[in-house]
């Protein structure tokens, strides 16, 4: 049984105008030591997935159906069906999260060390204060912060250091899965580079499962073993990262890859995907990408393509995928 398996997860936001279909039938699995990158544009539902997994939905977020099986070796548990007080044991200890703009998620009036100690004592009530502080010092070492800075306040930290502290916080209760939601988006490239390398190193060292969410395919390429491409509330393609980058089949993945400028390699002409993503209040019938798709046929606008395994480990939802060289239709 994989560490995490998500089956047909559906979550809508209820608004005055109707339901916003932010997470609409998501399936994936995650193993120990594996990292899954979820890439998509703003508003496609990436962050909503993580909020649904952790059951941290805002008031208007309505869970519709699906299962999230979490298995840390003692048998699978469906997190969705747990009562809230049971769920708390899994949140932070089972699955933890580094939030977007995490540097603003530290409390300015407590020292950074105290905030992490508090999280640890909450989940390990039997631990002594000294033991918790020793654990924080260890975590600081792990994320590349000087343990002497434990008793400083967040404003004494730089942006990159705050981000490291937030990662230490996310690791404080020994999670099995860590979800990182655009943790480096607000940072400059040189700092981003260090944080990315650090996250990858820690994830492999602790053999955690990692879900890394970003809009930046270059960042995703650096950290992920496999990649899910998300469009308008759905996964359109899921495969190991080399396949996604070198041999994408879904026209959206293909468009995304060829519209991304790079500083390496030859300067290619950039591809433009026409149009704009649909409004999730009222998504188009059939395939949601069909109105922007160069391969779209009548079938695409009427029938929704199923998310199926086209080759081992490679999933895709498309009626008319991009042809590979030397392949007949």
């Amino acid at each position, binding site marked *: 049984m994989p560490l995490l398996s998500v089956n047909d997860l559906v979550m809508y936001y209820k608004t005055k105008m109707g339901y916003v279909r932010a997470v609409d039938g998501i399936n994936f699995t995650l193993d120990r030591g594996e990292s899954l990158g979820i890439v998509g544009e703003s508003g496609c539902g990436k962050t909503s997935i993580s909020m649904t997994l952790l059951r941290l939905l805002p008031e208007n977020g309505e869970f519709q159906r699906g299962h999230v099986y979490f298995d840390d070796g003692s048998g699978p548990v469906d997190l969705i069906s747990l009562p809230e007080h049971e769920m708390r044991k899994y949140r932070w200890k089972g699955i933890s999260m580094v939030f977007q703009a995490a540097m603003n998620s530290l409390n300015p009036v407590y020292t950074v060390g105290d905030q992490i100690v508090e999280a640890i004592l909450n989940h390990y009530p039997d631990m002594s204060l000294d033991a918790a502080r020793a654990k924080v010092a260890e975590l600081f070492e792990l994320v590349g912060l000087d343990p002497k800075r434990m008793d400083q306040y967040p404003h004494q930290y730089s942006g990159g250091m705050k981000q490291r502290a937030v990662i230490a916080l996310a690791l404080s209760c020994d999670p099995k899965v860590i979800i990182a939601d655009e943790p480096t988006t607000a940072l*400059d490239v040189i700092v981003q580079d260090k944080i990315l390398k650090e996250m990858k190193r820690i994830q492999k060292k602790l053999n955690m499962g990692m879900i890394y969410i970003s809009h*930046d395919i270059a960042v995703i390429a650096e950290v992920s073993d496999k990649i899910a491409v998300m469009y308008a509330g759905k996964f359109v393609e899921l495969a190991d990262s080399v396949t996604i980058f070198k041999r994408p089949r879904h026209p959206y993945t293909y468009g995304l890859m060829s519209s991304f400028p790079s500083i390496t390699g030859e300067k290619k002409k950039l591809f433009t995907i026409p149009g704009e993503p649909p409004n999730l209040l009222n998504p188009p019938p059939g395939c949601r990408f069909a109105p922007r798709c160069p391969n779209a046929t009548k079938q695409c606008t009427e029938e929704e393509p199923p998310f199926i395994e086209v080759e081992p480990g490679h999933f895709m939802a498309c009626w008319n995928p991009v042809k590979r060289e030397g392949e007949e239709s």
Partner: protein
Amino acid sequence: MSEYILEVKNLKKYFPADRGLFGRVRHFVHAVDDVSFEIKYGESLGLVGESGCGKTTTGKVIVKLEEPTDGTLLLEGEDVSTYVGARKKEYHRKVQMIFQDPYESLNPRMTIFDIIAEPLNIHGIGNLKEREERVSELLQEVGLTPPSSFLWRYPHELSGGQRQRVAIARALVLNPSFVVADEPTSMLDVSIRTGIMELMMELREAHNMSYLYITHDLAVARYMCERIAVMYLGKIVEISETEELLHNPLHPYTRALLAAVPVPDPEFSRGEPEIIGSVTKPIDPPPRCRFYDRCPIRTKDCEISDHPPLVEVLPGHFVACYEVEKQKRG
């Protein structure tokens, strides 16, 4: 006539960092510190650097949203500071700016027509009918078609990409010859971004414009610019033709920056950026090289000398570094 549309000479912009008794300023942030560059007719120069390096301030001084502390701006070979009255107004017609955030740069209470026509109004160009024609023509050009369906809408009814197209139309309505573009695509999604980048290149051709393209993203600069200037803490540390800069970076900061850029290829392995510590604020910086504290190749000489001048070490390739200069001079 000058070879350059715009020349920036020894531009400085200091901001007060704190005030002492009686409002006397004691410390200054050296946001832009002795920056010089030229932009040829029809050229697009990329100004690249991390946040807080002074790239946006440079752009604002050029469009006169900020008064420079010191330095000269030459437009078409003429000193801009000598302009008065009508000439001054003409400068504001010829030099325009496109801002980063299309959600903040458009007045939410104005219609698209009012937003784009406002510069015409200020400069007293045309009557209502002519303005409407001109705005429709521009909407067509920036790809908001049919124009009649956009003219009377408000910014909140448009998507981010459409708003940025409106902002571009507003910048172009007076037929400028020089445009400062401050990260015009950094707030946009990948699939929308390429469209805006292409539009800006087409418009440059069609209207014979020159750009100062400000960005933190070297990959975007590669597609938008013929030359790139790299800025660090208020100083230009390297300036060169784009492909030369990307393939043969000389300044240690440029090298670190390039090594840190993630590459959209899971099989590509990057080097380690060689750089020490983290960026500081340029408040009353010491006279030595701005990059000294973080430099992997610094020497004793660097500590006691002033900030190095930009020197042409290869044809058209300028670097501000004593060590690189020494190596190249052999």
